[in-house]
């Protein structure tokens, strides 16, 4: 205590700083860094939770490379990304851009668009699953039937199931993206628009030459954020296909679901860890490539 009192103000602050940080540093080391390291180590081992952990070198990765299910899953994961990100970004931008110009019931409309973002994914997965059922249960098919159209097989078809699961995922994320886009639009100084209007520039030119370039930071953020979300899709798929997770015939199975099954149904911990390392590599690559492309000067 006496020694503390003799310290200078600066030195005291250093003591306080490490005092503030002690517990958090322990947390980040034990709960974040060590598990990351452990996952990487485990990916070079074979372990079924009961027997001993054995070193197998690259065997898990080789097995993954030759696993036809993995390639199907890999493809599915990227289909979620390649369809999900552009569709949700274009939709949310168009809505935000138009909503920004409306005044009548502006707050109410914005709240309605935002509402799905606050719902629980699991609850909504079941709601949509109900909608997709065949007649006489599912709302969509009942609606189609009432108009005299043919039935659509949503969740039991290898070609329709993935888009059917993707739609609720897009729907749930739209509200967040709209709010972020609107905040971005509001940050653009009105003087830019006034100057353009005085110069007689058309609406489309304003959109392409002023609005979109100035929104670039917002767009970069949303592209990366939503891509990571689609690459990690799990809750919707798991809940909409509980009787055969990832089915029919693995046509909807994303990488996270494969990891979950390998680890907690087959208890093949090493193989599952190798899959998580691959997921990590994919997320890292996709984020870095997008940042690179989108940050480039035109």
């Amino acid at each position, binding site marked *: 205590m006496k020694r503390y009192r003799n310290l200078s103000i600066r030195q005291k*602050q*250093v003591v306080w700083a490490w005092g*503030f*940080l002690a517990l*958090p540093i322990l947390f980040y080391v034990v709960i974040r860094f060590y598990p990351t390291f*452990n996952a990487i180590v485990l990916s070079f081992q074979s372990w079924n939770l009961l027997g001993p952990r054995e070193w197998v070198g690259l065997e898990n990765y080789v097995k993954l490379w030759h696993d036809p299910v993995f390639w199907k899953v890999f493809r599915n994961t990227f289909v979620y990304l390649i369809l999900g990100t552009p569709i949700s970004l274009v939709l949310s931008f168009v809505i935000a851009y138009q909503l920004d110009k409306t005044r009548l019931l502006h707050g109410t409309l914005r709240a309605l668009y935002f509402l799905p973002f606050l719902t629980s994914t*699991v609850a909504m997965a079941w709601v949509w699953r109900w909608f997709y059922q065949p007649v006489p249960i599912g709302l969509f098919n009942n609606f189609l039937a009432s108009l005299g159209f043919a039935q659509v097989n949503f969740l039991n078809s290898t070609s329709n199931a993935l888009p059917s699961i993707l739609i609720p995922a897009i729907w749930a994320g739209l509200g967040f993206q709209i709010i972020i886009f*609107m905040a971005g639009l509001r940050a653009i100084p009105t003087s830019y628009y006034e100057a353009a209007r005085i110069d007689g520039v058309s609406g489309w030119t304003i959109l392409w030459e002023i609005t979109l370039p100035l929104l670039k930071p*917002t767009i970069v*953020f949303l592209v990366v954020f939503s891509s990571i979300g689609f690459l990690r899709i799990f809750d919707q798929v798991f809940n909409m296909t509980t009787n055969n997770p990832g089915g029919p015939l693995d046509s909807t199975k994303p990488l996270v679901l494969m990891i979950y099954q390998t680890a907690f149904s087959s208890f093949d911990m090493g193989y599952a860890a190798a899959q998580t390392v691959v997921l990590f590599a994919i997320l890292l690559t996709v984020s870095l490539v997008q940042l690179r492309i989108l940050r480039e000067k035109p």
Partner: protein
Amino acid sequence: MTEIRASSAALMQTRAAKGPRDPWSVLRWTLLAMGAIVMVMPIVYMLSASIKYPFEMYDLNIIPKEPTFENYTYVLSDGRFLRWFGNSFLIATLTTLSAVFFDALVGYALCKFTFRGRTFVFIAILSTLMIPTEMLVIPWYLMSKSFGWLDTYWGIMFPGIMTAFGTFLMKQFFETVPDDFLEAARIDGLNEFQIWWSVALPLVTPALSALAIFIFLGNWTAFLWPLIVTNSAELYTLPVGLTTFSVEQAVEWELIMTGAALATIPTLIVFLVFQRYIIRGVAMAGLKG
């Protein structure tokens, strides 16, 4: 930082009327209103189904001819839903309190103190943002298994008691707190913890509440980790319980919809009450990126 503040505040006001009346405005408004209705339809049909009898469950009408609360009494009767609800609430609340406290503490230390290793600690914490939860769940599971954390509240909570995102956000917001305020408090004889708690924290309350909303919502809807770490029905969180319940009911969709409604209604109520704050908070937290 100030720009973010300004723009998220500006979000709350509608643009002032300018120029001649846009001839497209009626069409635009109609389309936007239709879109908004489509957006909430799934929620509306879920709520509607939860107060319908099975005989009209599959009709397209939204307002039931014979509304009933029997589904709710049935679903709530065995007490499981209340238990899951309580679990989720407790876990989300405690995790949020812990994360907001520690994220603000670390954010402040990294922002307002100068010491060797500050940048290193900051970069190290920030780098954990790149590690996906899915990569950590297997080691967390093994860790929980050896420490006896499986099937406990602590087991569900421990991965979320601090967040790198919140630390980053709070560090950003503490930049807006002038050092003079802290210096003045120091002269008044407050110690550094007191300065943080009673001078700096009150100045960033909007950021704290924005962060709290995000973290609470994230924990309230979290699914993968609670699914892995819990085994017994008494420990399930609402999303995990809802999955089990729905699988059990299989074809009784009005009961599944009632379960889904029970998981959704609380957030709907909170949103209706705090709408403005929540939207502003989301914009504020989201825009930091």
